[in-house]
């Protein structure tokens, strides 16, 4: 040992192996089942749009940091996650430039202009999607599952179809498909949202890897379940609830979007409240909004409340137990006398 090179640093002298990059990699892995489901249902085009979206996010992040002379953060893989999530919220019929515009908005406007990783106050992918609704028709032209002819056929003549959400929006149980098919993803919708099974698989992986906790997704999904069960809008309660749970972006939103670290609270109670808030707004928009889906706007609204929730629902201070409070109160009472 070279004694002249003794290194003195602040404790702790150990660090856990997980870092930002490994966490982002876990999220990418967890998204793959949903990507496979999307490609299976919508063909090569789904994969192509995802690749374009990821590439655009990475390139915009790299270019922005190069121009602003910041260290390139591309290695942390966060732009890859944003790219995948953005693509997952698009219909497979979207033209190629849609994810590029969305990526620009997500990465440059929402993420980097506010300071980069960890500083944005809304979910970049969802904000990108919201921006893309400047082209509402392009964003809501749904392709029927497996209506492509040959996997690589870029399917300009793909059959368009209504999504189960459109049916739910008029308070009716979808009739064209059965619930089980919808659960597995044989339905119209955005690339990454259709298969609840694939999304749940990814969610379980994230739970096992301790990347996410159950608090936000469970609070979100349960709130939607309870509300739709109480207010079935004239339908059979359980069926109505089940359809609401496996339609639209609920699973994708609850498992992958609402759990985005930067834009959700860190306190455990605050996280539960955050999840409940997402659920409430989702159902509110689905029931009373003019647009059929509420998940993405619900999450965006709750995103801006994340810091507020952390402030409002701070955990109990260690040592401040019920007895201790009682004692303090008694002492204060004595002094007052």
């Amino acid at each position, binding site marked *: *040992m*070279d*004694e002249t*090179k*003794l*290194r*003195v*640093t*602040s*404790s*702790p*002298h*150990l*660090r*856990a*192996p*997980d*870092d*930002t990059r*490994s*966490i982002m990699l876990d999220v990418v892995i967890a998204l793959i089942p949903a990507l496979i489901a999307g490609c299976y249902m919508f063909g090569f085009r789904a994969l192509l749009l995802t690749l374009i979206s990821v590439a655009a996010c990475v390139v915009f992040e790299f270019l922005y940091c190069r121009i602003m002379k910041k*260290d390139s*953060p591309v290695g*942390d893989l*966060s732009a890859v996650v944003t790219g995948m999530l953005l693509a997952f919220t698009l219909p497979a019929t979207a033209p190629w430039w849609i994810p590029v515009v969305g990526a620009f908005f997500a990465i440059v406007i929402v993420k980097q202009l506010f300071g*980069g*990783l*960890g500083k944005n106050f809304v979910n970049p992918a969802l904000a990108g999607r919201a921006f893309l609704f400047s082209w509402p028709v392009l964003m809501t032209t749904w392709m029927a599952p497996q209506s492509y002819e040959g996997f690589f056929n870029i399917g300009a003549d793909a059959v368009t179809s209504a999504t189960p959400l459109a049916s739910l929006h008029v308070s009716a149980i979808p009739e064209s498909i059965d619930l089980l098919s919808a659960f597995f993803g044989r339905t119209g919708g955005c690339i990454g949202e259709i298969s609840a099974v694939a999304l749940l698989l990814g969610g379980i992986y994230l739970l096992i890897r301790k990347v996410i*906790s159950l608090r936000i997704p469970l609070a979100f999904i349960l709130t939607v379940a309870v509300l739709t069960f109480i207010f079935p809008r004239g339908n059979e309660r359980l069926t109505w609830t089940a359809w609401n749970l496996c339609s639209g972006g609920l699973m994708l939103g609850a498992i992958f979007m609402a759990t985005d*670290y*930067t*834009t*959700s*609270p*860190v*306190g*455990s109670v605050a*996280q539960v409240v955050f999840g409940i808030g997402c659920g409430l707004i989702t159902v509110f928009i689905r029931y009373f909004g003019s647009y059929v889906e509420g998940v993405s706007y619900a999450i965006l609204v709750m995103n801006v409340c994340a810091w507020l929730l*952390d402030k409002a629902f*701070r*955990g*109990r*201070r*260690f*040592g*401040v*137990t019920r007895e*201790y409070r009682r004692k303090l109160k008694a002492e204060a009472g004595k002094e007052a006398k």
Partner: protein
Amino acid sequence: MTHGFRGGVHPAGGKELTSGCAVKPLPAPELVTIPVSMHVGAPCAPLVAVGDRVCMGQVIADTDAPLSAPIHSSVSGTVRKIEPMLHPNGTHVMTIVIENDGLDTPADTIKPHAEEVAADPAKLVDIMHDAGIVGAGGAAFPAFFKLQGAMGKADTVIINASECEPFITCDHRLLLEDGEHVVAGAKLLRDALGLDKVYIGTEANKKDAIKRLREIIAGDPGVELKVFRTRYPQGAEKQLIRAVTGREVPPGGLPADVGCAVFNAYTAWGVWRAVEQGVPAIDRIVTVSGPGVKEPGNFRIRVGTPVRALLDAAGGVRDGYFKVVMGGPMMGSAVFDIDVPVLKATGSVLALGDAPSAKNPTCIRCGRCVGVCPMHLSPLYLYMYERKSDLDMLTKLNVRDCMECGSCAYICPGRLPLVQSIRSAKQKLNAAGRK
């Protein structure tokens, strides 16, 4: 089995390196360097002069200050130097250097106190003071002061045998090799406080030591072993109290506020020895380990032995390791110089490599630091407000509650220097004269 407190982390052990290594006595070095401050509280003043002959166990520095502990010579020999020298904490502290004559001539003050204590258990306070016993877990709080403060207040006494820091196994080996006397010391502390029972709290990872302890205390209603799930920082005083009694020490409070007194296992052992043999705190067991040490092991060494001698005893340091830490890897401090001495409360000397770091530490708000904080704090917000020097928010978020266990910085995937920033926050509050 629970871990009885919220939060915490489980850093990959490192204990397997030395948990099977029996304690080897290390011959006392030719020179021992003994700083006059090895404890929380007032430093002592030297009672000897250069050239004096001293005996092993003789008091060589003391003070009248109430919170302090006398310092004893750990060898017999001649005082060679008394001057400020580098202390492991990085400051310069008055230090007595004694040349060892190799005879270990005991001081005439060394005599058993068993009869006195049997007649009056409260005598233990004086005996512990005179033996210079300090909390051996690392904090080095004078143990007599703790006992004195707990008298008449404490209804629970706990022996802390958790040893929750990675790599360290000195208490584990002590329990395994000489558990009887740890238990004997525990009983002395129990009797001094006039209680019926003493709890011994430990982590489940020390299976053989637990088995041994169970044998020792079998059928004795006056000692109860509590085994907790292995989770750092199980051995932190407040967390251990929470686990054993369910009580929480109030903010800014002491264990005595909830009727508890906690002593480290080695402290209990030292109490037994001070009573039974009259030997003061002149040696201790030190784990020398870490990935950078060639032959990790446990050694019984004299206080004042330089760290260098310990590293040599463990086969030296491998190439590529350049951090030497006294204490555990989570809370211990890296030393500037390996000639600094081992103190009364040094449980381990580790040779470590660099911890993973990031070029641009970035908070992604994953919230892991909040989840692992055993004091229910939000380290990410403390970090942020420290950078802004927002003293009001730091106070509001109870930054003073932080015990710097390091769980947050350990778990942080963005590699933020969280503990460092919290220390700096406390210093800023101190500088501003805030409570």
